[in-house]
């Protein structure tokens, strides 16, 4: 009886895993389909080539890359420092605000930032553009970085910093030479996470991007809205591959 139930559960689990992974696999497989219809008509790299030659796509991809890189750098630094400060002694208002930023629906974050920018633009002669997107991305990425880094900090022995102070290092040196090296894998993992979150964002970005700062998700969305297009399959496969690798590296680092 138990073995039958165990087998039943295993079958269900297999089906569940298929459910989770099959759609992406099918998407990837059909990115190699020579035809744009669902009938398989031969293997082809045609859509990949088309994607790489589409200037709108490549420009947008480039924008996404720059935005993600800059936002990741900023949010990782700011978030790591924040995690360290919270680890030393928690701040309920700050932790609460960060938690709130995680659970606030993206649409609300997006429109509030849009309203905020428009209000600011009355005083500064600026417009929506790459910088507004980058700032927005920094804002919502910090919470992710803090969570990952603070989890890593909690595995660090607090007496190590005491020893550093005892031996003549001041508080900054204790952080720089003792604690930071210990959490570095976690910081890098957080950075990779922040990168994927930033690169993939659609909702907030679409609201605060300017005319010339289209990102890859925005272009994909526009194409998808018009209907299915194998080019999107190709880009999707590349994105999944890229993100998947980053996440795997990130997970390895988190437990390093």
């Amino acid at each position, binding site marked *: 009886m138990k073995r039958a*139930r*165990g087998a039943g*559960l295993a079958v269900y*689990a297999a089906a*569940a*895993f298929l459910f*989770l*992974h099959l*759609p*992406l696999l*099918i*998407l990837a497989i*059909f990115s190699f389909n020579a035809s744009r219809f*669902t009938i398989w008509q031969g293997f082809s790299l045609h859509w990949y080539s088309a994607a790489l030659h589409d200037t709108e796509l490549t420009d947008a991809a480039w924008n996404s890359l720059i935005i993600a890189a800059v936002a990741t750098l900023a949010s990782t*630094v*700011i978030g790591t*420092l*924040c995690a360290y*400060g*919270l680890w*030393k*002694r*928690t701040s309920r208002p*700050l*932790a*609460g605000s*960060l*938690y709130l930023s995680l*659970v*606030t*629906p*993206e*649409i*609300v*974050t997006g*429109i*509030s*930032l849009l*309203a*905020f920018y*428009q209000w600011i633009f009355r005083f500064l002669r600026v417009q929506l553009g790459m910088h507004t997107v980058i*700032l927005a991305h920094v*804002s919502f990425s910090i*919470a992710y970085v803090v969570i990952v880094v603070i989890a890593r900090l909690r595995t660090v022995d607090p007496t190590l910093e005491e020893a550093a102070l005892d031996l003549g290092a001041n*508080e*900054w040196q204790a952080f720089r030479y003792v604690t930071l090296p210990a959490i570095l894998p976690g910081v890098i993992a957080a950075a990779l996470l922040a990168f994927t979150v930033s*690169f*993939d964002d*659609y*909702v907030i970005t679409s609201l605060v991007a300017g005319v010339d700062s289209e990102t890859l998700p925005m272009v*994909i969305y526009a194409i*998808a809205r018009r209907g*299915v297009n194998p080019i999107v399959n190709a880009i*999707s496969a590349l*994105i*999944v591959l890229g*993100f*998947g690798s980053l*996440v795997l590296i990130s*997970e390895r680092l988190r437990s390093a």
Partner: protein
Amino acid sequence: MNRLRAWFLAPSWTVVITLFLAPLAIILGYSFLTRGVYGGITAPWTPDSYQRLIDPIYLAILWRSFWIAGVSTALCLLLGFPLALFISRSGARKNIYLALVMLPFWTSFLVRTYAWMFLLRETGLVNTILQKLGLIHSPLPLLYNEGAVILGLVYGYLPFTVLPLYATLERLDRSLLEAAADLGAKPWATLTRVTIPLSAPGIRAGAILVFIPCLGAYLTPDLLGGGKSVMIGNLIQNQFTTARDWPFGAAVSLVLMAIVMVLLFTIARGEGESLL
């Protein structure tokens, strides 16, 4: 130490205040203003926007959002529980299975939503296969309806129930299950009367983690719902773009935020502290 810590927290405070809290405050203010002639906002201060929400059209959207989010959450819990159970019993391979569950989630959400467009559309894979097998004669309208939205949401957030359920099941005291069996309970009874009740914390955590994003969903109903399943998120987005009625959009946003905060306070009070 306090000086260094203050310096370390300052950048985060700056970002949180200027790029998160201030915008929310502005939205709060806007919700009490009036729509300008060309869009945007203008005086006078009025609670009209909130009163407009009582209109049946908007209440229907609110209800639909709760309905879709509720069904999606229930499905995620139902589908996720056996999977979490399986993983918690799989011994050495636990981490591999957990990674397999989480991996899709960390790839692009947009791509994963698009995948269902690809599969469900009239000339998509599902319809093509069903027709080839002779089960149907004309394509089924699988896409651009509420069912597709729910499917997309379940697909997107299933991992969010698996993880907390797994965590709770993992910590379950095996001897309790053995005691139940010892006292004569059949496997099904043990499941329903011991395992599931003891998993309540995990169920609560998973429910919150799925319900709240589903309630505020925008992309999924937009791409998979085809305009027929307008949810709160779509309504808000619409007010800030096409309709250009910012005060009303702001009011809807704040109502959504209020609902989210109430849910968090009542059901998931301790969760945030353990994370941050």
